[in-house]
């Protein structure tokens, strides 16, 4: 009986399997064919030999910017015959883990958080960067950048795009009209803020609401101020948990940021009081500058895309950005920024070819020409960068005096950097005191 029963079960399984098998018999793929012989393809000589292969890329880049990505490697695809299949998702950080754990990892991922990258390295999922790519990366990027994707002396990712976060956006037009000048030190910044506040305008505006990433703009504030008050060494200790999160030096920096962020006299131009920072979306946080309700907004270079249509972004235009001034110019010129790293979950030759290509000067210049993008890649020709803020950023990044530091919240374990730190900053803006907030974050860092 039991035998008969299992036979029937098999039969059913057979029917099911057949049906699903039918379902699985789809149509074949159209394959692209390489055009290696064309003259413009000469530059792609070393990537040849993978005609008809497909490489999948997963990232958090969507919509227009995703279209620009596709455009940027179009010629590479045409010449080599490699089909690059890019997919961008707003759920990237969470979904990458699901896909990798589920055995369905993409070939390449653009990971914006070194902390996340390290997690996948630790679990043995990310492949070490191949020798060719590594050589190219070492030529094209400063060690400052490569150390973020290096674990135990081995390179696991190549930097791609970058941004500069140490900017204060302002309106050159308004500044000129009112006779304000761009501050170059922290004290000048505060003096200017007081002056503007006395004139009846709130000098600053800010917003940290950003969907499920709410809080991140405030963490950038803290990091930027810490870099300025304590210098890069303390910053590095802090991001690696060499000093506790609630170290007095950090608390000091948080309080210093608070003299602007939590100052009712300064905040929040165009939106209300300090607490409105928590519910103002970061995308619209700077817009009161265009209406004169706010004078300054500290935000990264990519904020250039957030201005209302028709706003001219230029040194003599409606809005522009100045470098967030140093507290003590003797402590150097620290720059906070971020970017993404190209990491490979597969080591097939065509995947390595694409990874190498993305580290090359040809690629970054091809991408930069399309607009609204920059990279710390040394091969990037500043003349290929159309946007004035991006130009300024490239100058800053390529300036040998610049001490670049990666966004700290991206370096910390995600539970802190994308969890308690964000949430803690929300609470802090919402009225909790510095000590309680920092103690809470420290307690969550295990």
């Amino acid at each position, binding site marked *: 009986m039991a035998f008969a029963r299992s036979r029937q079960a098999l039969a059913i399984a057979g*029917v099911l399997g057949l*049906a699903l098998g039918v379902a699985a018999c789809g149509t074949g793929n159209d394959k692209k064919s390489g055009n290696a012989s064309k003259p413009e393809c000469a530059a792609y000589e070393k990537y040849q030999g993978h005609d008809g292969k497909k490489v999948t890329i997963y990232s958090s880049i969507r919509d227009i910017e995703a279209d620009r990505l596709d455009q940027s490697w179009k010629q590479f695809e045409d010449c080599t015959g490699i089909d690059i299949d890019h997919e961008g998702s707003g759920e990237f950080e969470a979904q990458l883990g699901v896909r990798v754990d589920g055995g369905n990892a993409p070939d390449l991922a653009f990971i914006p958080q070194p902390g996340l990258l390290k997690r996948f390295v630790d679990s043995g999922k990310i492949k070490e960067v191949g020798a060719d790519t590594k050589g190219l990366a070492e030529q094209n990027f400063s060690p400052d950048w490569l150390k973020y994707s290096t674990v135990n002396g081995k390179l696991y990712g190549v930097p791609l795009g970058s941004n500069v976060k140490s900017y204060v956006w302002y309106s050159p037009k308004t500044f000129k009209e009112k006779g304000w000048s761009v501050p170059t030190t922290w004290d000048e910044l505060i003096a200017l803020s007081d002056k503007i506040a006395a004139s009846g305008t709130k000098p600053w505006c800010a917003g940290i609401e950003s969907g*499920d990433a709410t809080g991140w703009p405030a963490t950038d504030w803290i990091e930027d101020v810490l870099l300025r008050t304590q210098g890069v060494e303390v910053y590095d200790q802090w991001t690696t948990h060499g000093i506790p999160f609630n170290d007095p030096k950090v608390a000091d920096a948080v309080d210093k940021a608070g003299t602007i962020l939590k100052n009712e006299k300064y905040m929040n131009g165009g939106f209300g*009081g300090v607490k409105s920072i928590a519910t103002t979306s970061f995308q619209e946080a700077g817009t009161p500058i265009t209406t004169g309700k706010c004078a300054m907004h500290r935000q990264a270079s990519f904020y250039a895309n957030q201005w209302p249509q028709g706003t001219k972004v230029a040194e003599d235009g409606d809005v522009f950005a100045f470098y967030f001034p140093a507290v003590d110019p003797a402590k150097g010129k620290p720059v906070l920024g971020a970017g993404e790293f190209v990491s490979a979950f597969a080591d097939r030759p065509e995947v390595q070819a694409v990874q190498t290509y993305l580290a090359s000067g040809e690629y970054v210049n091809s991408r930069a020409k399309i607009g609204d993008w920059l990279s710390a890649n040394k091969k990037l020709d500043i003349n290929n960068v159309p946007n004035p803020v991006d130009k300024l950023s490239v100058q800053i990044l390529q300036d040998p005096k610049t001490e670049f530091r990666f966004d700290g919240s991206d370096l910390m374990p995600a*539970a802190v950097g994308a969890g308690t730190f964000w949430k803690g900053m929300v609470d802090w803006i919402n009225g909790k005191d510095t000590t309680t907030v920092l103690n809470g974050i420290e307690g969550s860092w295990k």
Partner: protein
Amino acid sequence: MEFDFAAEQPKFLMLMYGLIAFVAVVGGLLLLLDVVPAWFSRRREERLVAAVASGAPLPRRRKPREGLIALFFLLPTLLFLVIGLVVPAIRTTLLSFMDKDSSHWVGLANYTWMFSEDSIVRVLINSLVWVLLVPLVASAFGLIYAVLVDKARFEAVAKSLIFLPMAISFVGAAIIWKFVYAYRGDGDQIGLLNQIVVSLGGEPKQWLLESPLNTLLLIVIMIWIQAGFAMVVLSAAIKAIPADIVEAARLDGVSPWQMFWQITMPSIRPALIVVVVTLSIATLKVFDIVRTATNGNYDTSVIANEMYNQAFRYGEPGQGSALAVFLFVLVIPIVIYQIRNLRQQREG
């Protein structure tokens, strides 16, 4: 710009394969179920005949066959459930006793973490508030509304309006309500709620920041969505009350109030149970609303949201799993109630 229809063909082909698979599986199963019992009964008859001929004792029958048939009826469901839910549930339970790399056993560490961390305890409390309020208010509202519009001329329209939010995704609903709760410190309000407050002479508020009010405001969103479900089910139940019972009561001079408590309520009790049970479980798992509206900030997080963050965003699958297991535990009372219900039903 031209829409390339040819490129879409493989999808339709795939859809067709899917439908063929559907017909094949379901039809095949039913066919099999018709053929197999027939074969069995033929064999039993043969054995019966043989037994009678040889004078041996008659073979026993009936019981195992029923079980076998049931097995086939249940087979697809059980297969899918085992793969899609049972295995994951077991895996989740195991993970909840492991560290964040899922490589070492840590005993109850994740559970002690859950109950010792203030923010997580807060999450648990919030979830309790949700699961107490949503089913209660949504069912009550649905019931009142169903009674109010019963047999009204505009009933179909009125019901559609209440049901409308069900057609909107949770994410969409949360966006809609974020608009309602929006706050502007300077200038015009763009949120309806603050506009009303302002026009009544009050100060605009940042609704989503004010704990514990904000949790209630999020609960409103869930009620807004689910009341339609409650209303439709309960309205249907009210309409199913036999007319003669209602008539008899009316003849006895029963007041509408008494009518409601003595006739309507007992008659729709089973429907009410379905509504409350369904809503309770849906509420326990609520995720998108909180995530879209506040992402759990300002003390509004609930278990499912925290679980997702821990497991997928923070890389703490152990802690996330422990929260999921706590969800399983929370549903036990509902399961026990369901068992009692089932017993009563079998007896009645």
